[in-house]
């Protein structure tokens, strides 16, 4: 009975109600979109940092991370790979050879890091394949092919199909060298990366460095990137920790961890700010709406409706409005996020200088259930709180004055 009355009241004045709902909807959409945006930005930053090269976890011979010498290579790669492949949390893995070396062309030479990869496995762990801007990625069974960064190609004055020579200290201490052709040129968000990283086929690198079938590391992606410790521990139960080191991305690039923590703190603040901004709008409109109906309340009270009932009525109507607002707001937010995340938000419309850095300035907003819940709770809280004062005022009316109110 009560609800019916409240519901009818709400829709009796469509304009008023729609305005209030609209305020809530815009507030909610604004809130959810900014949360989704922040979350997307954080994921993007993390993905960029990890996706270019590191992956979520890396397994090496103990001590390799601090001293990347070829003698610290994995003699039993099959053992490691088997453990990794059987681990349920692992999504993909890529075996690699890593060594410092020298690349030379007829014009110039440069110290670089040689990375031997398994062409079909690597794209499941990193994005290097998509970052090839000229030529092609390495062939699965291709031999004597290399991928070099754009900055390096410019320095060496080489292009596609040109020959370069790689030189490195091999496992026996001798200097191994070989000639390769540039199969593809890549460009990442980091000019430094482009100058120092050279990719070739795993088998080619093993030959160059006289490694036999040894490798330097296994890079792994998992399904819970934000929490890699679980998989790390699982792997360590099966791998001898005297011989191997299993590192999470948090240990490899600790600066990312603090960046994320920073982010999280700011998300709270942003959320609060938008909440307050929305709050102003809701409070104001609700107040005005209630004040509009003073005569109406006056009549009701004159007809015998008790003050508490008036209060409850106002609050209930507000709750109903919140409901509509939340449902509609969530729907719109979802659609908006869906639309924007298809194409990604191109931030260069906000910043001229980002246009020169082509890569890495697209954000894909990401909505999670917890955000939706938090948003809904916020709107409801706002709505109910905002209705308390007008409800109170309404219930305190003296019918006589109310009736005379203009």
């Amino acid at each position: 009975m009560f609800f019916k009355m409240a519901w009818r009241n709400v829709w009796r004045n469509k304009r008023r109600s729609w305005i209030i709902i609209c305020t809530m909807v815009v507030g909610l959409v604004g809130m959810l979109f900014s949360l989704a945006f922040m979350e997307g930005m954080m994921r993007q930053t993390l993905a960029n940092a990890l996706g270019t090269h590191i992956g979520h976890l890396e397994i090496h011979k103990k001590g390799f991370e601090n001293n990347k010498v070829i003698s610290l290579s994995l003699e039993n790669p099959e053992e490691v790979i088997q453990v990794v492949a059987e681990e349920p949390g692992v999504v993909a893995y890529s075996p690699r050879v890593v060594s410092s070396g020298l690349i030379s062309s007829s014009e110039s030479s440069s110290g670089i890091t040689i990375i031997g990869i398994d062409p079909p496995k690597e794209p499941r762990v990193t994005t290097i394949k998509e970052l090839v801007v000229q030529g092609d990625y390495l062939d699965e069974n291709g031999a004597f092919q290399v991928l070099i960064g754009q900055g390096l190609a410019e320095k060496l004055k080489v292009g596609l199909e040109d020959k370069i020579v790689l030189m490195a200290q091999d496992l026996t201490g001798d200097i191994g060298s070989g000639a390769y052709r540039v199969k593809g040129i890549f460009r990442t968000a980091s000019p430094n990366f482009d100058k120092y990283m050279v990719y070739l086929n795993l088998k080619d690198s093993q030959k160059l460095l006289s490694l036999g079938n040894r490798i330097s590391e296994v890079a792994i992606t998992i399904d819970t990137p934000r929490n890699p410790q679980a998989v790390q521990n699982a792997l360590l139960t099966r791998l001898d920790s005297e011989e191997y080191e299993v590192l999470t991305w948090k240990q490899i690039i600790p600066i990312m961890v603090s960046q994320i923590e920073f982010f999280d703190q700011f998300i709270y603040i942003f959320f609060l700010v938008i909440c307050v901004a929305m709050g102003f709008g809701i409070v104001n409109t609700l107040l005005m709406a209630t004040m509009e109906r003073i005569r109406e309340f006056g009549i009701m009270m004159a007809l015998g409706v008790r003050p508490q009932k008036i209060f409850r009525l106002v609050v209930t109507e507000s709750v109903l409005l919140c409901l509509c607002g939340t449902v509609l707001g969530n729907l719109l937010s979802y659609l908006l996020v869906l639309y924007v995340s298809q194409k990604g938000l191109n931030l260069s419309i906000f910043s001229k200088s980002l246009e020169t850095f082509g890569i890495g300035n697209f954000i894909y907003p990401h909505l999670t259930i917890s955000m939706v819940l938090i948003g809904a709770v916020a709107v409801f809280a706002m709505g109910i709180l905002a209705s308390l004062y007008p409800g109170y005022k309404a219930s305190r009316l003296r019918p006589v004055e109310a009736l005379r109110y203009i």
Partner: protein
Amino acid sequence: MRIFLKMAWRNVWRHKRRTLLTVAAIAFAVAISVFMRGLQRGTYEQMINNVIRINTGYLQIHKKGFWDNKTLKYTFKPEDHFLEILSRQPQITSFAQRAEANGLASAEENTNGVLIIGLDPQAEAKATTLKEKIKKGKFLSEEIPQGTIVGEELAKNLNTDLGDQITLLVQGFDGSLGAGLYSVEGIFRTGDPELDRSVVFLNLKAAQELFWLGDRISQILIFVDDISNLKRVAQNLRAGLDLKSYEVMTWDELMPELVQLIAFDNASGQLFLALLIVVVAFGILNTVLMNVFERVKEFGVMMALGMQPKKIVGLVFIESTLLSLMGVVFGNIVGFGLNLYFLHHPISLSESLARAMEEFGFTAKLFVKPTFSTFLEVSIAVFVVSLIMTIYPTIKATRFKPVEALRHI
């Protein structure tokens, strides 16, 4: 006209609470925006300062072509008129000369490729923060001419510690081999893995000897009092030097990755502010809308008495303008106050965050940097948006015919 203003003013204050809430909403948006922008700018400046104070400087002077090709071929003798030009710029607080070359460092069995940088300890102590990054031992000093300081990672890789000797080998300026023995006097940690893993520092004179450079140097690092003076200083320097032989580069040209980081963060900050303004704008829209509809009868009466609809639009418009103005002004005052307060009391970060920041060589505080342009852009944005939001309601209001209006409930 004056009647209008008076009328508008009185209309505005007829509903105190409502007006105050609207003004508060606008003020809130403005204050937060101004404060946040100030905070953002402050953080960027801090980041820039931290990074460039270690190793880059705000500006650098080199031989033309050095930055693309950092070999000893591109070195120069710092002529007297250089130093004269530098000392004539009041905004320059300090400068430091350096010489660098790629070479090998060897200790016992291990040999690593390194970047060898020679610096002037006294000048550097005034200019860069390198001295504070020494974790073990002490900084370079002219009293120990063959001393060297190495990065933490490098020390580990070479298996050396304080007191040990390392051999440095380079291809000298004139092509001959330069080699020398140096004692490890200090171990530093800057937080920049590149530096910590592959750089050794020597006294400038020792480096010049090692490189067979004579009295040539590779670069002059320059520091200014305020980053906003940078462009002017760069211009003055470029005017005073022969640009065919020398290049003057500012930090953004030297570290494009830092610029990108900042631009990215800046852009997302702007997006957020845009969202905030949209939310507040809708709040205003709805408030004004309700306000206008409430007064339909009032407008009806006015129109019945002969007032032209466009005058009503004008009235409402002035009311809104007054509201917006009040909000913007008030918001600016609060925002300014916030900025001022935090200018003198920088925000300290939480425990864990603070520790993490210090690990990477950052100070664990947040600074604000309010600039006139911040206030201006925020004020204009909010003002314009809130005015736009009032257009629709007012136009709606004037569509009513007086007769309907009078009967409107």
